C-alpha cells in the first residue's frame, strides 16, 4: 500500500511516474513532490498514472492543486492514463474537461514540448 514516485527527464520534459495507491495516506507525498518540482522551476509536468492501482478524491485534489500551481506559471500538467478504473474517477467528477489526459507517455511528452 505504498506510493512510489520517480522523476525522469524524457526528451526535455519532466515526467513524474506514480506507482501504487493514491489515497488520504499517500497523497501528501505526491503533493510534496509536485510542490518541489514547481519550486525547481519545472512548470510543464507529465504525470504518468499508468502504474497507479487506486486513486481517490484525495489524489484528484492533489492533481487539481498541481495543475493550479503550474498554470499560475503558464505551465501545464499533462496526465497519462489508460486504465478505465482510474479514468472513471476523472469522468464522474468532470475533471476530464480540466486535465489533458493522454493514452501514452510519448503523446504526453510531445504535448508538453509543444506547450
Amino acid at each position, binding site marked *: 500500500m505504498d506510493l512510489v514516485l520517480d522523476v525522469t527527464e524524457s526528451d526535455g520534459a519532466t515526467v513524474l511516474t506514480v506507482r501504487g495507491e493514491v489515497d*488520504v*495516506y499517500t497523497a501528501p507525498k505526491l503533493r510534496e513532490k509536485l510542490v518541489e518540482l514547481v519550486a525547481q522551476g519545472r512548470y510543464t509536468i507529465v504525470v504518468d498514472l499508468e502504474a497507479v492501482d487506486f486513486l481517490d478524491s484525495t489524489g484528484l485534489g492533489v492533481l*487539481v492543486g498541481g495543475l493550479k500551481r503550474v*498554470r499560475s506559471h503558464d505551465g501545464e500538467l499533462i496526465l497519462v492514463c489508460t486504465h478505465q*478504473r482510474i479514468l472513471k474517477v476523472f469522468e464522474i467528477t468532470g*475533471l476530464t474537461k480540466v486535465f489533458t489526459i493522454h493514452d501514452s507517455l510519448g503523446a504526453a511528452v510531445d504535448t508538453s514540448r509543444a506547450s
Partner: protein
Amino acid sequence: MIVAGLAASVVELEIPARGEYVGLARLVVSSLASSRRTLADDRIDDLKLALSEACTNAIEAHADVGDDETVLVRWAESDDRLEVEVEDRGPGFDPSTLPEHPPVTDPERLNFERGLGIPLIRSLVDEVIFARVEQGMAVRMVMFCGPVADLDDDDELAWS
C-alpha cells in the same frame, strides 16, 4: 446498525481513525466483494472507491476530536444486495447543505481541491444513506447484485 435480516453474514472491521488504515478497509471490502460471484469487477472497484471516500471522511471528521478514536466498517450481505457502512464518532454533518462547486469549465474550479468525495459516493453506489448515529455519523452504501429479490420488503432497508 445493519438490519437483523442480514445479520448472518456480517463482518465488522474496526480501525484507528488514521489514514494508514484506509487501505486495509479497502482490502477487506474488495476481498469480501470478490468472493461474491455476482458482482462484476468494475462494480467491485466502484464499491472500493466509495468505501475509501467514506473512510477518508470519517477519519477527517475525527481530526478535530483527537485520533484515539476508531472507525467502524460493517459489511452485510443478503441474496440481492451488499451493504457497507462506515461509522465514526465525529461531529456529524448534514449532507443536504454541502456547498456546490463552480462548473468544471470555470477557471475558479481550480480553487477547489476538495468536496469531491460525497459526489463520488453518490454516483458510484446504488444507494447511499447518511445518518447521524448516537455518537457520530454513519454512511451506508448499498449495491444491488445477484438475484434481485422482491423489492417490496422495504423493511430490509430500514435504518435502525
